[in-house]
Structure formats: C-alpha cells, structure tokens
C-alpha cells in the first residue's frame, strides 16, 4: 500500500529529476560523450584508411562490429516489448519501469542502427541500400536479408519512438503547466496542446493500445529478421531454422538484464525507491530467469541438431566450438546465460539488488559474447579447411565498441534529464486504482492533477 502523498510527491520528484543537476551527472555525461567521440574518431580512421585497420580477414569478414549490432538490437527488444506486454497485463509495475524501458529501446536502436553503416566497406554509399528512384535505374536486391534489415529497423525505430512519445504526452502537458521559462515552453509545445480533457483522454486511451498492439508483433518480427541475416546464409553455424526464436528469446533476455541495470542506477541516482520497488525487480528477475531457461533449451537443441546433423562441416564446427581453441568462449556463454541466472530461483537474490545486479551484468556480458561466438567462430571454421582462419578485434574495433556504449549511455542520460523517467500520469493512475476501485475516478483524479497541479488532494473537493 503506497503512501497517500505519492501523487503529490511524484510531480515534485520528477520535476527534481529534470531541474536539479548534480556535478556527478555532468561528469558521467562528459565521460560517456568522451567515449562516443573516441568511437567516432576510430570510425573516421577506418573511413580514410580502409577496413585493414580492423582485425578482419579472409574468412572472418564480420566481427566485433556486427556483434555490437546484434547486441544492441537485442537490448532494444526488452524495453518496448516488456512495457507493451505489461500494459495489456494492466500490471501495476509498468508505471515504474515502462518509461525507461521504452527509452532504452529507442536509444538502443539508434545505436544499433549505426553499425550496419559503419560496417560498410564504402559507407559513403550506404544510401544505395534504400529503395528510391534513381538516375542509375536500379533498385536494391529485395532478396537480400540486409535489405530486409533496412525495413525492419526503420519501422521498428519509428513505431517505438511514437509509442514512447505517446506515453509522454500527459506528463509533458503536466510539466508544461508546472514549469516556467524555456523548459515550460518546450514541454508545452511538445505536449501538442494536450490539456487532459475527458475527450482527449478517451482518444488517448483508444490510441495507446493500438501502438502497444503494433509494437509486440513488430518487436518479434524485427529480431527474427536480424536473425535471418545469419540463418539465410549457408555458413555452418548460421544456417539453422532455430535462429529466429533463438534471437528473439535472446533479445528479450539481454534486454531485461540491461533494464534491471538501468533501473537500479536510475533508482539510486534519483532516489526513486518509492516508484521502483523491490517487487518490480522481483518480477523482472523472474522474467530473466524464464528467458534464461528458454535460452538453455535453445543451446541444447542447437548443439543436438548440429552434432547429429548430416552435414560434416556443421558437426565439426560445433564440436570445435565446444572443445576446440574457441571453447572458452562457448563455455563462458553457457556460464553467464544458463548457469548464473539460476540464482534467481532464490527470492533472496531476486530482491537483493546487489546480487541481482551481478547476475544481470553477467547475463548482459554473456549475451554479447554469445553474439560474438555466433558471428566469429562460425566464419572461422567454414567448409574449406584450407581457408580456416582466426580473428582478434583490432583496437579500432574496440574503440568503436566503447564508443557505442558511450553513445548509448549519453543518449539515455540526456533522455532522463529532459523527460520524466517515470510515467507521472500512470503512477497516479496506479495509486488511484489502488485507493478506489473505480477506474473512472482514477481518470478524473488524473486530469485534476494536471489542471490544478499544486495539490492533488483538492480535486476531490
């Protein structure tokens, strides 16, 4: 049972998270931006000198950069998907975690989307992948999974950005009323004149579920498409029908893990213990555990299928992965993604944030390594033994990777600085839903809260 003053405090807390900026924030932002800049510089070098600066070679033509691409696409999944599912489940915890999860999604795609471009041998021609009528009278090859990517990613970023913005509208409006000066003006204009009338609300309540409904299948399809980049090829270790569910599950898995980390940081940084509670983490941890079990099943199935596969190359690859020179990679994946999450069976771990963070971190790491394993080991152990090769990332690739994480963090920090990281309206809804069973009241209370922001209580008078 939440304290009755919650509805009142939420406004203040969110406003605080936006207006009060500590030196720690600036430092962190500066560091993040620094990393992003470093990555940018590394890429500029590659553009000028050539891909020889990477560690790639024949036969390993894809490496760390593609790993990052898949990883961030994966990360992007939890957010919107989770938030949308929770929305339909009318889950009380959504109010606390939905917003930052959605933000994480959008930002993760903005990061992931860079990599296919960075990775081009001639990045300045990336627009050739877009279907537009041109003087050369040729179109992209619609058979190519890479072209599917273009569509999948652009539509996903559009929809999830809209979904996020939609959810923000009431909060923007409310902040717009509360704040003066540039900020106030900014929020008022961004809120598109949302004033919280019953008419607006009923439209809002109609529109929101539509987005939520679109997001779920889209999320599933997007990562299936990404998995087809691999599954559609004939490379041993890639060419497998299990890849789509494999990647989607993996995506949600890594996404939840990262969500846990971000929420924990957020909670600490802005002291939001009232809104992001143990119970939230508990549920997320259960979700992560469930996903981990699915992943374990996938790993087992995959190895089983391959080792008893007719194709010699396929079999050799998997045996080599498990016992060959690359075995450490494989087993660390198993440890991080299948063993460590089992701790979440214990409630102590689920509610003890420190332990949970360790697990979540291991999972994030494990998922990155898993993508690296899929990309690199498959390529280095192909059909022609005379062409087997090896790959180690060059410092340029590492710089770009660091840059990507820097870029991601930077954007996320800017987001939570500019926008309320917890849905004000939903928090209030949730509270009213708990205080009075009548959802209608919850609504009136809601726009009352917006109309007369100073004291939420008066609206009942």
């Amino acid at each position: 049972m939440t304290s009755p003053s919650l509805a009142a405090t939420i406004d203040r807390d969110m406003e605080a998270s936006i207006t009060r900026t500590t030196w720690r924030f600036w430092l962190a932002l500066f560091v993040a931006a620094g990393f992003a800049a470093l990555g940018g510089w590394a890429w500029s070098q590659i553009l000028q000198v050539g891909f020889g600066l990477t560690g790639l070679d024949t036969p390993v033509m894809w490496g760390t950069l593609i790993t990052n691409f898949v990883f961030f696409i994966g990360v992007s999944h939890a957010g919107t998907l989770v938030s949308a599912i929770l929305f339909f489940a009318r889950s009380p915890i959504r109010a606390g975690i939905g917003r930052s999860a959605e933000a994480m999604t959008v930002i993760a795609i903005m990061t992931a989307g860079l990599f296919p471009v960075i990775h081009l041998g001639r990045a300045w021609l990336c627009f050739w992948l877009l279907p537009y009528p041109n003087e050369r009278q040729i179109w992209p090859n619609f058979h190519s999974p890479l072209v599917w990517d273009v569509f999948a990613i652009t539509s996903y970023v559009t929809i999830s950005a809209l979904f996020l913005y939609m959810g923000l509208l009431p909060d923007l409006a409310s902040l717009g009323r509360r704040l003066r000066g540039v900020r106030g003006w900014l929020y008022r204009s961004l809120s598109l004149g949302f004033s919280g009338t019953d008419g607006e609300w009923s439209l809002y309540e109609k529109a929101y579920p539509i987005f939520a409904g679109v997001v779920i299948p889209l999320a599933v399809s997007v990562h299936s498409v990404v998995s087809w980049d691999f599954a559609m090829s004939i490379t041993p270790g890639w060419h497998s029908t299990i890849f789509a569910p494999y990647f989607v599950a993996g995506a949600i898995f890594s996404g939840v893990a990262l969500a846990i980390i971000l929420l924990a940081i957020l909670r600490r940084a802005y002291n939001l213990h009232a809104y992001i509670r143990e119970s939230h983490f508990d549920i997320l941890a259960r979700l992560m555990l469930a996903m981990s079990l699915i992943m374990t099943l996938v790993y087992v199935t995959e190895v089983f299928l391959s080792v008893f596969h007719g194709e010699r190359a396929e079999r050799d690859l998997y045996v080599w992965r498990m016992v060959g020179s690359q075995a450490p990679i494989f087993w660390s994946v198993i440890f991080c993604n299948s063993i460590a999450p089992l701790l979440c069976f214990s409630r102590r771990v689920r509610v003890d944030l420190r332990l949970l963070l360790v697990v979540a971190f291991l999972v994030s790491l494990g998922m990155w390594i898993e993508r690296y394993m899929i990309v690199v080991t498959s390529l280095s152990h192909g059909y022609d033994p005379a062409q087997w090769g090896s790959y180690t990332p060059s410092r340029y690739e590492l710089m770009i990777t660091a840059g990507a994480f820097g870029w991601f963090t930077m954007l996320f920090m800017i987001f939570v600085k500019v926008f309320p990281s917890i849905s004000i309206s939903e928090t209030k809804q949730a509270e009213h839903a708990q205080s009075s069973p009548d959802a209608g009241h919850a609504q009136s209370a809601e726009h009352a809260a917006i109309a007369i922001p100073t004291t939420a209580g008066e609206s009942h008078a």
Partner: protein
Amino acid sequence: MLAALAVLAGLAAGTGCKSATAQPAPAPAAAPDARTSIPFDHSLHAGRNAIPCLACHTSADKSPVAGIPSVRRCMGCHRFVASDKQPIQALSQLFKDGQAPSWPRVYDLPDHVYFSHRMHIRAGLDCSKCHGNVAAMSKVTRVSPMKMGWCMTCHKQRGASTECITCHK
C-alpha cells in the same frame, strides 16, 4: 538515429560517390604548356571541309577506342594545307621535335566503364547521337551527360543489352 543520419549525410557529401576503381597516377606529361596547346577548329575540318569523322578518328569503327589522329596524320595534309598559318607552323615545329600537342579531353568515362565505339557504330549509331553536331562547333563542348541513366535509357529503347557486365569492367 537522426544524429547518425546527419553524420552520414555529411559523409556522403564529403566523399561524393567515388568510383570503385582507384586510378593509377596520370602520366606526368599530361599537363599542357604553351608550346603544346594548339587551337583546333572542328567546324573548319568537319564542317566547312566536310572531312568525315573516321578520316581522323580512324579506329572508331574497329576498336573500342575512337583514337586521336597522330601528328604525322595531321601533317599529312598540313605539310601543304594552310602551312603559312601560325598554328600550323607551331604544329610542324612540334612534329620536327618529335613532340605532340596535348588536347583537352571533352568526353571521358570512368575506368570502371567499358565503352566500345566499334560496337556502337556497328549498331548504326551516328557519331552525332552522342557527340552532337561537331561539324557546327568551332570549340567542341560536351552535349550529353555520359551518365549511366542516359546510357540505360538508350539501351532500353533500342533493346540493347542491359546486363551490368556488358558495360562495367
């Protein structure tokens, strides 16, 4: 994402669409100097004197390259014709020194394009189809864009091959 796109736009602008085919450095002597630049008037040769194109661009019908007449060929006529004119005297001086004038290029294709004059002449195209009415130009200027779309349009109209490999090497 927008940020990313912005970066790319900048890039695309910066780098332009480079050809896939880096070039060996051009020959040192390709730069013109006062001695080797000699005025040439197509309207005089092809126009007033109605000399057919192939008379000077001899290999246009037998080779992918149309060819520019050798100095010896020029002197073939100019030993007698207009030998009193200053430019011609400059030319014959060059010839004596075993040197050649350097003509500015008007039409030029990137190295990744394969173009065969002989096949286009065989297809019954008139030189003017691409080069315009040179007979009327005292100073030849480029009349056609020489861009892929321009080639494609004509190839499609005339049912010529539109396979990439036909024209790209």
